[in-house]
């Protein structure tokens, strides 16, 4: 009952079956739960950011350049992800795949920069997540976001393969659309991290 396209359906392909509509709705709800999860981590960070316990403070620690490159990479990847969905809506499976691959590469670049930043803190500043409550909450908040990007990247590889294998079907378009939602969500979370963690940390 769920997997077939309703006769006379005119809208976007990813919404064409009841199953797809349910999956997309469910994913939105899941993002709501993710939002709560990140809210808790943000709350912990805001509460603990002053508890440096003799370790480095945000101001001393944060690297402006690295953070800026990461932000640019991720924001651009969100844009290219949007272009991918745009291509999908135009019925171009190749365009979808290519833009997704670019998104993935930008995501991987972001991850590379983030890991490098973490390693810099740990190796050069001796600032590990065991140093102070501030650093615990910093590494866990930013690291959780990073772990999401990692998982999202693995997921995106799977979706790209499926799009290349099967072209644009109600299923592949739905899957691509959902990972697009996820990717934009991670981007929004990064904007919060950028503001709450880095900008506030460097100014205050």
């Amino acid at each position, binding site marked *: *009952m*769920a*997997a*077939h396209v309703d006769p006379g359906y005119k809208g976007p392909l990813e919404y064409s079956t*009841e199953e797809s*509509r*349910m*999956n997309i*709705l*469910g994913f939105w*709800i*899941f993002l*709501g*739960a*993710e939002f*709560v*999860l990140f809210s*808790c*981590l943000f709350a*912990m960070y805001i*509460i*603990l950011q002053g*508890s*440096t*316990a003799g370790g480095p403070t945000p101001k001393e620690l944060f690297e402006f350049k690295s953070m800026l490159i990461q932000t640019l990479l991720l924001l651009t990847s969100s844009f290219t992800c949007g272009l991918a969905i745009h291509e999908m809506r135009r019925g171009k499976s190749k365009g979808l795949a290519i833009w997704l691959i670019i998104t993935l590469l930008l995501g991987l670049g972001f991850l590379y920069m983030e890991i490098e930043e973490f390693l810099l803190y740990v190796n050069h500043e001796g600032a590990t*997540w*065991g*140093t*102070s*409550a*501030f*650093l*615990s*909450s910093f*590494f*866990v908040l930013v690291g959780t976001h990073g772990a999401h990007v990692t998982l999202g990247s*693995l*997921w995106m590889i*799977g*979706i790209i*393969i*499926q799009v290349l294998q099967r072209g644009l079907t109600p*299923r592949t378009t739905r*899957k691509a659309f959902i990972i697009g939602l996820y990717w934009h969500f991670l981007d929004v979370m990064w904007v919060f991290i950028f503001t709450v963690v880095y900008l506030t940390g460097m100014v205050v």
Partner: protein
Amino acid sequence: MRWDEFFVTGDPMIYAADASIVLATIAIVAVLTYFKKWKWLWTEWLTTVDHKKIGIMYILAALLMMFRGGVDGLLMRIQLAAPEMKFLESEHYNQIFTTHGTIMILFMAMPFIFGMINVAMPLQIGARDVAYPWLNALSFWLFFAGAMLFNLSFVIGGSPDAGWTSYTPLASLEHSPGVGQNYYLWGLQLSGIGSLASGINFIVTILRMRAPGMTLSKMPMFTWSVLITSVIIVYAFPILTVALALLTFDRMFGTHFFTVDGGGMPMMWVNLFWMWGHPEVYIVILPAFGIFSEIVSTFSRKRLFGHNAMVISMIAIAGLSFIVWAHHFYTMGAGPGVNSFFSVSTMLIAIPTGVKIFNWLATMYKGRISFTVPMLWTLAFIPNFVVGGVTGVMLAAAPADYQYHNSYFLISHFHYVLIGGVVFGMIAGLYYWWPKLFGFKLNERQGKHGFWWFMIGFNLTFFPQYILGLMGMPRRIYMYTNTDWSALNMASTIGTFMQGVGFLIICYNIYWSIRYAPRTNEADPWNGRTLEWAIPSPAPYYNFSRIPEIKEMDPVWYAKKRGEKVIDGPLEKFHMPSNSGVPVIMGGLFFVFGFGFVFGWFWMAIPAFIGILICMATRSFDYDDGYYVSVDEVKKIEGV
């Protein structure tokens, strides 16, 4: 870790548990092999995505856990009846009350409600399954992995002993160096993720899969309660996920979230725990409210009074549940402003709850009340829950709470609401929907015996505890020297044994009925009102051969009155999802993953995690579209 530390040793009770686990495993394997049931077990149960079977597995697990948690309770009561006998050592007692609380809330109440939801909700809305049957199976196996992991702690490595609330700094590595606390963290984490997935699943099911014509205002009250509960789950469980993860990091990787040193804040655990924990209480009680609403209306032969008020009051309870968490620690000294706010917000919950109680009474008013077993549990719920509820209002007054806090007064209060509300509700639901699942009623006479033993035992157990609390008996003590407390403690213990007898009678009732009860296969044995009573009993695996058109509340009831059929029209083939072995395998991998983390064995956890990722990829690349059920098959099953 040395091997003699790996297995818990030195206590006859634990050796007995070891032996019984080994024997039970051998027995199960032997029986399955002898009767050649392995294939049956795999294809019919382990790989099933049928919501009813998943529901049955949840309920079975819940009853098992109720037995385990109940035995814990009995052991505690034996110790407290005569502490001078030194039945239990402090360490052992601490483990037992910790596992009692954790198991009863997370591994008994939660699976019991999920079981009831799975069994009844899709049937009530005229759906053939839930929105994501595969995910539903995964939720169950995640819960099961978590529950088994938690229970394993008893024989391997040692149980957690910092209370079910696991407050830091007591639960920190410094004060609880054993692996018990890790079991707590991972057992809850796994089942918590399963619960979150269930919540999403149920919301989408209810929003998108209702039979045509069933608007939200015509939706049965139980389904309404599930919808609201699921919303709470989605917003509360991520908080638990975070809290558990952070404490895990503290214990395993030396972070400083809840430590006293390094700038951590132990009270943040308490805050996060109750920001999840209080909504959690409503997660387990609201579905029970839903079940009571169905049963009251069915057995009073009257429509539920004030449908809209019932829904609004549940929504109000759900909303308030997120802004009352600090009433669990008024005594922290956060200042009069904070305490006043949380006092008032907590008292406000009494208003929607009161509305519900009066609406249930009004439903019975001018009805024709028949005292079946499900109705008995429902009727017992009203006075017992009101006793628990009004003492909750007394506890809400912060300055008075300074005197009740952490005393047996509190213990009694939450047992009155949780047993009188949730357990009564789940047992009522079990008796109520049993014939729909299996085609026969549970024996009523035995059921009534079980009810009275349990009900009287329950009051005898917990009523004296109100007074003990006022006498100044704190919770979680394994011994006391104050002889004024002895008599009431003894009464309480006797009551616990009566509850145990009641539980055994209920189990026997189930066993007896399975063997001897006449198979009536009545579609509508209770003269029901909602959609589940329109389909055959036992419910066929596809539930509805045709999806009915809904015109009103209680469609089956009014159709009966008019002499119409609810399910009518020509048969057509329809689509059903395929079974899958991936969820159960993933459950197993999650178990290994969690077990590896409990002992800090990354060589075990990492391969298991990779296995989980592979399972997820398998799922993503799986384009199985399910299968179609033919008209002939439906005709064969329904005998048309």
